[in-house]
């Protein structure tokens, strides 16, 4: 049985996340942690779609891009407030997910992978070519810092807190979805689509909704990215990034939220290991960054071969072992 994470565990998580900017003012480390938080948001949404509902997406980087460009354009192009940009980016990405899900309803497995892959490629070309809005290959710069109620978040610590605060809320909401009725229906759909239909699950609606929520979360992460970095360019939203995101969910384990969250923290930190370990040699970092894709690839192969249920599966196994020791 799945046990919900206790109140104490959530409080501890809030405390740890909140304590980081008090313990360090290292700008580089905080920036790296902002990227980690952004990936946690995207991966939570993708874990919902792929890990729970079993619907593959090789187009999630494109949803991140939709959020990032929309928010950048709304704020720096149209001069509207930051919050409007965030809402616009998130909504547009969710609508994108909806529009992609509808024609893809009849597709599953490899065919859904191809359709979403095609979507990522189409969006990538649009990001590059729709220069009036996206700035083409040069990208968009001068995106304003987030600003809520007149408070400008222009320090690494404030952006860190904004991103991780959002990530915490997202993980909490996704945890509630997967624990409740919708999560049960998603896992049912993953287990057997015919079975889910026979149980009276409105499979089409469930797929479309899950796609929209998942894409919306990717879009939300994209808006945070745009305002945290201040600059967006097409290469950030390429198919390669979608593959990396999916790899993180696989390493984290399907049917798990904690696993993919842990995997997204670990795998995003990896190429920036020097931020955590100050003494680390430059050549080690250069190696990690040059071989990043290979390291992800190897991690994925190791997981598929040795622990097909990923980090989440290992957590579940450890839990049932400790329960067995308690009772036995």
């Amino acid at each position, binding site marked *: *049985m799945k046990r919900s994470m206790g109140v104490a565990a959530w409080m501890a998580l809030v405390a740890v996340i909140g304590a980081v900017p008090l313990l360090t003012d290292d700008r580089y480390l905080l920036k790296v942690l902002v990227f980690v938080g952004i990936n946690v948001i995207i991966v939570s949404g993708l874990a919902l779609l792929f890990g729970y509902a079993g619907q593959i997406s090789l187009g999630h980087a494109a949803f991140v891009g939709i959020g990032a460009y929309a928010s950048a354009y709304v704020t720096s192009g149209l001069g509207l407030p930051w919050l409007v940009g965030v809402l616009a980016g998130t909504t547009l990405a969710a609508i994108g997910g909806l529009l992609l899900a509808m024609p893809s309803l009849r597709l599953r497995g490899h065919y859904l992978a191809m359709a979403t892959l095609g979507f990522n490629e189409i969006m990538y070309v649009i990001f590059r070519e729709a220069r009036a809005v996206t700035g083409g290959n040069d990208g968009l710069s001068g995106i304003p810092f987030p600003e809520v109620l007149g408070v400008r978040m222009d320090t690494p610590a404030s952006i860190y807190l904004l991103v991780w605060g959002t990530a915490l809320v997202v993980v909490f909401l996704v945890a509630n979805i997967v624990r409740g*009725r919708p999560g*049960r*229906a998603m*896992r*049912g759909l*993953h*287990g*057997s689509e*015919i*079975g*889910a*239909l*026979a*149980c*009276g*699950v*409105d*499979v089409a609606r469930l797929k479309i909704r899950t796609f929209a929520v998942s894409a919306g979360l990717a879009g939300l992460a994209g808006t945070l990215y745009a305002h945290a970095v201040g600059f967006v360019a097409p290469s950030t939203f390429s198919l390669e990034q979608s593959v990396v995101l999916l790899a993180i969910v696989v390493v984290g384990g399907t*049917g798990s939220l904690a696993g993919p969250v842990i995997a997204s923290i670990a795998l995003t930190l990896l190429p920036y290991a020097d931020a955590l370990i100050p003494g680390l040699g430059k050549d080690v970092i250069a190696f990690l960054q040059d071989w990043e894709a290979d390291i992800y690839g190897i991690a994925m192969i190791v997981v598929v071969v040795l622990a097909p249920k990923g980090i989440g599966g290992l957590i579940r196994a450890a839990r049932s072992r400790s329960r067995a020791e308690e009772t036995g």
Partner: protein
Amino acid sequence: MTSDSILAVERLSAGYGRVAVLRDVSVDLAAGEMVALIGANGAGKTTLLRSLAGLLKPSGGRVWLEGADVTGMAPERLVRQGMALVPEGRMLFGPMTVTENLLLGAHSRPRRDESVRTDMDRVSALFPVLVERSSQPAATLSGGEQQMLAVGRALMSSPRVLLLDEPSLGLAPKVIADIFRVLKSLRSEGLSILLVEQDARLALRHADRGYVMRTGEIALAGTGAQLLENDDVRHIYLGARHDSRG
């Protein structure tokens, strides 16, 4: 169609793409009746059940459930109207626990429906082994237990019509007997059961009535006893020979 039938199928046609499988099939089912559909592989038995459960849109004809026209209705609405399917191959949710499988069976019912708990108890009483296995993943159950879970899951939607596709497939005789005992007790409680079976003898022995399907049409209809005595049925579906009657 007769006025007292809970399910009435009127000249139903259906198929896959341009391939027609069912042609003008008419079947009816009275309240508290168990009816068997028998026939060779490819006769259209499963296609008929799939069309009735809404998994396949019929290309012609009408389906009436308790007097309401439900032709072409989506599966999730049909489940809410009281039609439940135990699909071919069971289609359980393998990694999910037995309890979760049963709860998902009640997915069509309101969130805080107290009677879900009552039905859970009822299914537990019908299949006590499922209680022992409640926190085990469905995939780890034996074939017989899985079939019981599949029936239990369908019952969790509180149906009035139960469609069963090949409940005996791959099971030991003792398990089959257990399952049919449960089906008969459900029938005596007023549930109507439409059953597709490969094992024609088994099905006709237990059912009130039967239909014989051949190449997408109803070839014969009658009571279980009549069909068991019918020479064509005996030779084609029961494997009897002229010299070995009885």
